[in-house]
């Protein structure tokens, strides 16, 4: 596995961990009835900032851990070199991720227009943000494995 593929796998795993933790806490808050009051929007907004902080911490820790494990197993300290192919693959991943998020966002707006709960729609948008990041990573991994 190349260093680029490893970076993508780390990003995927950390995104899934963060999202699982986020969903767990959001579920607890929903059961406690925190989202039925007037401050639900503010609470949801704050949760996004906690999520961003958590993602940064988890991805840094995961990167360090994988780098240490890789150096210990293979005995080599691989330089993080990237070239034109990496840029093309990264761009493709970004494209697919953007299209996925845009489609989800528009369908979300349709749901909102047809009377869906606003807080639930914002929550879904946050979920789609994460899902699009995962989809983008999977596309990049696919191109690294199967070729462009």
């Amino acid at each position, binding site marked *: 596995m*190349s260093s*680029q593929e490893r970076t993508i796998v780390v990003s995927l795993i950390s995104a899934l961990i963060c999202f699982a933790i986020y969903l767990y806490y959001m579920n607890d808050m929903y059961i406690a009835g925190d989202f039925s009051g007037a401050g639900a929007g503010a609470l949801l907004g704050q949760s996004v900032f906690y999520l961003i902080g958590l993602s940064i911490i988890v991805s840094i820790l995961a990167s360090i851990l994988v780098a240490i494990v890789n150096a210990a197993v293979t005995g080599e300290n691989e330089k993080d*070199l*990237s*070239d*034109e*192919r*990496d840029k093309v693959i990264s761009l493709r991943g970004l494209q697919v991720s953007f299209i996925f998020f845009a489609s989800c966002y528009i369908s979300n707006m349709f749901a909102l227009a047809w009377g869906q709960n606003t807080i639930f729609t914002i929550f879904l948008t946050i979920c789609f943000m994460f899902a699009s990041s995962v989809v983008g990573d999977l596309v990049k991994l696919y191109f*690294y494995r*199967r*070729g*462009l």
Partner: protein
Amino acid sequence: MAKAKHNVSNEIRRLRFNADEMTQKQLAEKVGITRQTIVAIEKAHYSPSLEVAFLIARAFEVPLDKVFTFEFRED
């Protein structure tokens, strides 16, 4: 309507062998790209930019058409 198909094949593997069995890593270092990209180009999974194609030809000290071949056919 006839459908045109094209394919870019290469002789990198043979050229490496003839160049004192140059490794993919050595070629990558000479060209300034990653070994994974050399692997992808060799397997025809990726068509490099013109600049990288010229750099690969330069690494073997041969003209570009000795490294890459463009095949075009209409079905």
